[in-house]
């Protein structure tokens, strides 16, 4: 990579070197997604901006800075919207990367301004110059400036401010946060209603099609916003666009909380307490209070006309999970011959992957250690009524 830039940058700008390792890493990551080429490139640019600016932020300005949302949700968003959110202790920053050389404007997708859950305090204009090997923050604006003074373009749904309307000195941001911390940075925006799950399904069906190149512009903004602000639906949308089979995102439920979709898959959230665990005879060695899972997920199934419940919950935070097949009605038992089995995503068995009742028992259980991102398929014998194979992602 040649650094053609022999010219001294304006000292009000923040210029960071884009080293080859960062470029290679971001490129590899962006190729993992199988969406269309635009999405891959968008993800690549955003990843480069994040990977250069975040370490600088943490080292120089605010050690509380961290990438907003988790990696999976970030990737989902990059599939359809440009921009990367960074959380500080008490403020949010959105990076808007572009390849434009001319530094004439900051153009922010409407999602980052008008979705209350997404809006931030500061929006940074970031030039990513890959071949010249640098990333440059050349100006910024607050949410309030963009919302109140920005030029809204209907054709691409963006708010933009021209270069002379931006604050050119990035240092002003840090000094302002220190010397005038009470300054208002956000303007009010309309709340966005929640979407009816049936409507969400049909939207995902329609916008998930690969032929729909610009899904964010294909339906009215408020409709799009109701869909995209929900991480589960956003995830399902992008999974469909990438042609991935829909997985049941168990780990994501734990991290983000369960949403309506969970009930759609037939799962519901259950409260776990030390008492209920103990009462059901679970014996976890050296069970300490912080290892007690507070939340689990359960699904009702019927085997040979008997109602049972399949339960999944984590054991501590080490990646161990417990699957239980239990009774639903008091006093009932699992009949001999009933079998609970777990398989890998490609339906291979593994050691200790099944339990069978040899006598009437109250509970069958299997405990497994899983890496983050690993998936499992569950089966039971006799096959439950209306059984549909599902891939549970951890």
């Amino acid at each position, binding site marked *: 990579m040649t650094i053609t830039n022999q010219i*001294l940058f304006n000292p009000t700008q923040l210029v960071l070197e884009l080293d080859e390792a960062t470029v290679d890493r971001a490129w590899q990551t962006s190729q993992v997604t199988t969406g269309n*080429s635009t999405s891959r490139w968008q993800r690549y640019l955003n990843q480069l901006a994040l990977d250069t600016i975040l370490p600088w932020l943490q080292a*120089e300005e605010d050690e509380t800075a961290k990438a907003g949302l988790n990696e999976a949700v970030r990737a989902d968003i990059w599939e359809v919207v440009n921009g990367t959110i960074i959380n500080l202790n008490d403020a949010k920053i959105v990076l808007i990367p572009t390849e434009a050389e001319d530094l004439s*404007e900051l153009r922010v997708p409407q999602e980052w301004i008008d979705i209350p859950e997404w809006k931030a305090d500061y929006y940074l204009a970031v030039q990513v*110059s890959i071949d010249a090997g640098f990333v440059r923050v050349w100006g910024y604006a607050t949410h309030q400036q963009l919302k109140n003074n920005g030029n809204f373009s209907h054709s691409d749904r963006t708010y933009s401010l021209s270069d002379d309307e931006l604050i050119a000195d990035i240092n002003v941001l840090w000094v302002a946060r*220190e010397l*005038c911390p009470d300054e208002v940075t956000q303007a009010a925006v309309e709340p966005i209603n929640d979407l009816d799950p049936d409507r969400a399904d049909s939207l995902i069906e329609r916008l998930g099609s690969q032929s729909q*190149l610009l899904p964010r512009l294909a339906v009215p903004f408020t409709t799009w916003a109701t869909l995209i602000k929900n991480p589960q639906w956003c995830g399902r949308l992008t999974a469909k666009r990438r042609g991935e089979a829909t997985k049941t995102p168990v780990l994501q439920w734990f991290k983000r909380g369960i949403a309506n979709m969970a009930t759609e898959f037939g799962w519901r959230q259950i409260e776990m307490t030390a008492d209920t665990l103990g009462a059901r005879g679970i014996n976890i060695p050296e069970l300490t209070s912080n290892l007690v899972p507070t939340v689990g997920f359960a699904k009702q199934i019927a085997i040979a006309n008997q109602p049972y419940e399949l339960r999944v919950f984590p054991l501590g935070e080490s990646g161990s999970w417990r699957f239980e097949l239990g009774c639903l009605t008091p006093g009932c038992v699992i009949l001999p011959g009933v079998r609970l089995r777990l398989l890998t995503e490609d339906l291979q068995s593994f050691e200790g992957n099944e339990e069978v009742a040899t006598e009437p028992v109250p509970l069958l259980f299997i405990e497994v250690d899983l890496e983050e991102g690993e998936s499992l398929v569950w089966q039971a014998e006799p096959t439950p009524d209306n059984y549909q194979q599902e891939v549970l992602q951890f």
Partner: protein
Amino acid sequence: MLPRQDTVKIFSTFIQFDYDRFSSWATDSRLRRSMKQCLAKIPRESSENFWALYWHQIWEQQPKSLAREHLVAYLQEICFWSSTKTINGFTSTQYTVSDCFQVAIAGIDKVLKGFDRERGFNLKSYASITFGNLIRELLRQKREIDICSDWSLLRKLSQKRMTEALAGAGLDPEVVASYILGWNCLKTIYVPERASSTRKLPKPEPETWVAITNLYNQERQTSLDQPGKTATTEDLEKWMLSCVKAARAHLFPNVTSINQPKPGYESGEIVDSLVGEVDDSLLTDMIADEEAQQRSQQQSEIGQFLTATIQQLKPEEQKLLELYYSLGLKQAEIAQELNTQQYTVSRKLARSRKALLKALAKWTTETMHISLTSDILDNISSLLEEWLAGYYDSQK
């Protein structure tokens, strides 16, 4: 170049170039008339700085008035010197002083908007640093864009710049809107396929053109006020080549387009109503006002404060500021001088500037009893930039 002395000339004449060299001063008769009328209103002689501040104030109230033109005239020498100085800092460049001059003077609104009349020192020193930055940035852009293939170039422009370039090429707004949509469709479909090959994108393959055209025809229904006819791949290809041409031409605006009157002036709607209208009350206020006195008092206090603050910085930080602001060294040269890396220089310079900005902001609130906002800090940052340029310049 022969600097101008006469106040009327200072506010009403423009540099004419003979190829790359200064040739003469050309007078704009409207501006001369306007300036003479103003001078007649004032009983005593006043400095050019007085008039610069007067026009700046008028410009702020009426950005489209003749005031802007007066200020463009006023800043001619500064712009010329900034161009000469900046271009001499480049070892090999095919760009002329006249090219740089045009680029810089086209950025005058940035100078006028950024200048803080209340606290600033003077418009000329602020203009000098702003012009310098503009020219350096443009030379950098120009260099990058010159090595880009046509198809790469299309990814390297902002929508604002592309729109301006197409409008500058004389296209109707409706046509511009279709081209911009087509251009956005191209950017959506045609992206680089390798990690770092953004400069040498080849011409899109025929099937890519088909995809771009399909997307255009789909989007035009909702995105364009006038959806127009169904476009063919030939249309799209032709439009994109026009975009490339307009973009390259727009990078260095040509001489005639700048000194030409803005629309409206010719017809007399704007100009003639304004020529001859001197803002008497503003003039009287400015003359009577002791503010000027106060301002210079304030300025010397700021100067003393910053001088003292700089002396408290570490010697290496002081050295860096001096190398940058005084000698105008390039990043690579400073890096060499200090035996460090380019990006380290940029980072360290930013850090020193931040320390100064914070100190000056605090001092300003304490001594002038202003409550800070981001906008005021933005002004203070410009003020600091201006002061640093002046300070190190006077130390040479």
